[in-house]
């Protein structure tokens, strides 16, 4: 009975309270039981994905903090090959993209798929095996990078053997997810399912095509860089981005208890996203030794991607209209809305830095690091945190123990990533200006960005604190030490006038 009572959405309970708890009739109860069964069937694999993801998040954060300090204190540990900046940075990226982001994304995607297909998860052992192999792949990859076997392709640094393990693990996960889609009940396919199905299909094509073009039948010369950035960009948009957007499309309406504002808008947003986002990426090679038309096409696609950004943003905004005060209470909503807004910011920064006049200044500067963190952290990671705050209680049958810890987590994450992005955006701009002034010596351009890099290190400390707080809270939940209340943990005590807008 415990799990049943925790399955309803936070807001439906919120909105019910002032009305004195409307009696649920039988169909509703059946639905609740059904949901509880589905949730229970996803319990082991999803928790395994989450636990692994959070482990990689912690290690990756420590590596990031180390790399960040290394940039302004380059003599730290210079005698140890494993700890040289280039290896630590690559290991950090690998852990965050494949260890944290992909595993958290897959965990959430599996749960969402089961919920939306309204089918219990059969053979969870397949997924557990997939998760185990994926972990092995990340471990091998990171170990390989630290041992000096990086391939030299950004976002694809894992040695080929690690990539092969990841791919096998992925096929296990995907085959299962698509199978679940096959056994879905009901005709309509919800928006979230479009995104998830697309992500699940795009990733293996992308990964395999890149692997073939870089290692099996390698393309010549600069085409490797083209393949490399095509991969990195699409991994961000078509894999992580699609999962992130799909999750936001589920969580926001679910928590506030209203349907999505417009399905048509959502369809436009989805297809323009698929079309334009997959064509961006080459602007990272701007002014390089490539055909100009190719880069221009990507810049145009980046500009056109304002269409999906605007439609998705508008849709979320209209769904949320009048319900924004709920962000005071629901951790899920707060994280998810932060992520959704960051997605817009991420895309707009992406457009600005790809314009040729701007790229002249900020290309080859820390601005690109700001951009990736906007996408990977401010957007994707925050959405994932939000979904975990929603899903984990439904898996373990307990509610989050401390509202204070959630608040601390949110604020240190939000301020941490905000500070980081701000520092790197401004620092990158300053760096670019002094780099383009040929009368200044080159080292002046790197010196000019150092204060900002120190600021970034401060943000790294904030983020480290935030992640350890979250991990601690998660471990409490895992060991059944959460609250046994029937009401979810709200960030603040409910004030009824906020609930009815």
């Amino acid at each position, binding site marked *: 009975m415990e799990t049943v009572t925790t399955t309803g959405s936070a807001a439906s309970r919120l909105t019910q309270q002032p009305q004195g708890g409307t009696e649920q009739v039988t169909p509703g109860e059946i639905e609740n039981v059904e949901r509880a069964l589905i949730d229970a069937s996803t319990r082991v694999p999803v928790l395994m994905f989450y636990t692994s993801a959070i482990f990689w998040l912690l290690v990756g954060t420590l590596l990031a903090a180390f790399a960040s300090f290394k940039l302004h204190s380059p003599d730290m540990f210079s005698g140890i090959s494993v700890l040289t*900046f280039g290896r630590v940075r690559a290991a950090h990226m690998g852990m965050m993209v494949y260890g944290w982001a992909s595993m958290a994304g897959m965990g959430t995607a599996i749960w969402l798929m089961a919920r939306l297909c309204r089918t219990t998860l059969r053979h969870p052992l397949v997924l557990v095996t997939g998760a185990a192999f994926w972990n092995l792949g990340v471990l091998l990859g990171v170990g390989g990078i630290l041992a000096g076997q*990086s391939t030299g392709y950004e976002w694809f640094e894992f040695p080929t053997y690690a990539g092969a393990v990841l791919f096998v693990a992925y096929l296990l996960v995907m085959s299962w997810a698509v199978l679940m889609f096959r056994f879905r009940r009901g005709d309509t396919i919800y928006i979230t399912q479009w995104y998830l199905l697309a992500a699940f299909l795009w990733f293996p094509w992308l990964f395999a095509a890149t692997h073939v073009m870089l290692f099996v039948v390698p393309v010549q010369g600069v*085409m490797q860089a083209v393949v490399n950035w095509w991969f990195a960009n699409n991994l961000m948009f078509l894999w992580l981005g699609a999962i992130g957007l799909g999750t936001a499309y589920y969580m926001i309406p679910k928590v506030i208890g209203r349907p999505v504002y417009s399905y048509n808008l959502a369809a436009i947003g989805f297809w323009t996203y698929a079309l334009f986002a997959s064509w961006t990426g080459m602007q990272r090679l701007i002014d390089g030794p490539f055909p100009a038309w190719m880069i221009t096409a990507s810049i145009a696609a980046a500009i056109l991607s304002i269409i999906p950004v605007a439609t998705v943003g508008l849709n979320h905004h209209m769904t949320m209209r009048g319900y924004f005060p709920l962000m005071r209470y629901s951790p899920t909503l707060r994280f998810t809305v932060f992520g959704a807004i960051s997605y817009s910011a991420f895309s707009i920064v992406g457009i600005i830095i790809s314009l040729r006049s701007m790229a002249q200044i900020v290309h080859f500067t820390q601005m690109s690091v700001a951009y990736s963190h906007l996408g990977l952290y401010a957007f994707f990671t925050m959405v994932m945190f939000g979904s975990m705050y929603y899903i984990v209680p439904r898996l373990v049958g307990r509610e989050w123990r401390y509202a204070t810890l959630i608040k601390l987590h949110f604020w240190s994450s939000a301020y941490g990533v905000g500070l980081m992005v701000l520092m790197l955006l401004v620092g990158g701009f300053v760096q670019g200006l002094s780099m383009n002034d040929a009368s200044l010596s080159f080292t002046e351009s790197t010196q000019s960005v150092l204060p900002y890099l120190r600021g970034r290190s401060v943000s790294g400390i904030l983020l480290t604190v935030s992640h350890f707080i979250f991990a601690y809270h998660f471990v409490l939940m895992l060991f059944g030490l959460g609250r046994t209340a029937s009401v979810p943990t709200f960030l603040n005590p409910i004030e009824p006038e906020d609930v009815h807008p």
Partner: protein
Amino acid sequence: MKGLLPLFLGIFGTFAFSWTGLIFIPNLQIGHLDPQTEEDGTDAYPSPRSGMAERGRQIYAANGCNYCHTQQVRADYAGSDLDRKWGIRRSAPRDYIFDRPVLLGKMRMGPDLANVGHRVPVTDQNAPAPSATTSTTTGAPVAGASPAPAPAASASPTVSPAPAAQTASAPPASAQNPTPSPSPSAPNEVVTAINGVPIPYTEAWHHRHLYSPRSITEDSDMPAFRFLYEKRQIAGQVAADALNFDESSTDAPPSGWEIVPTYEAKCLVAYLMSLDQSHSLKEVKTAAAPASPPAPGKQVK
């Protein structure tokens, strides 16, 4: 949205569209380039690197040098790459046809390295003139393209067997001049060196810089790569390739000890010295003199 088939086709279609536009068509355009040659088939550029330099590329990639150094010179309309004399022309796809992995880079926390095997040091006023004070290092053969084989073991700084082709009496350091570019530009190097213009980065300079970046450029924020060097007790004589330090230098090993590059360090330096895009390309306008094979490297901004 109803029906799985349109959804699936759309998902596949957008992916295939992106692949066709950004990979397949560009690959038709720039994916099958040959080296450029004169009409009589001579003067091929670029040419594959030597084994050591290729190994050096792996070390460059493995240690993430590409996270801070680019290897691409932008055209005059973008950035100040040419003004900074990071090259005499913009980079072109043909420059990279033998590169695997290609290490173009996307960040400049360090200067561009597209021509570091050819360039002269410009910004180290406070440098202790390393090429003059350090002894010659040996062992790392220069790029396979070099027409004049580097003097294999010129251990003593005073001995300067100038490459046979060059008649001018070269200063000691020019003996280590990699001259990886084909012969036409090689004499130029020697002449400019004689006129008091700084000589290109030498192997000794690179080793010293990798071991202790801030002993050469005070403001450098490059990590030191000390793990590529070995500290050992001097057995009898100081090794020919030992790093040479000023007496005052805090990096100097205690007396009786020496710092020698490992094989990996030598490969890395061989790779760095092989980075040279000074050869003109027909499809790229060289900044000053319109492309003629003996484009004089040094006079061009």
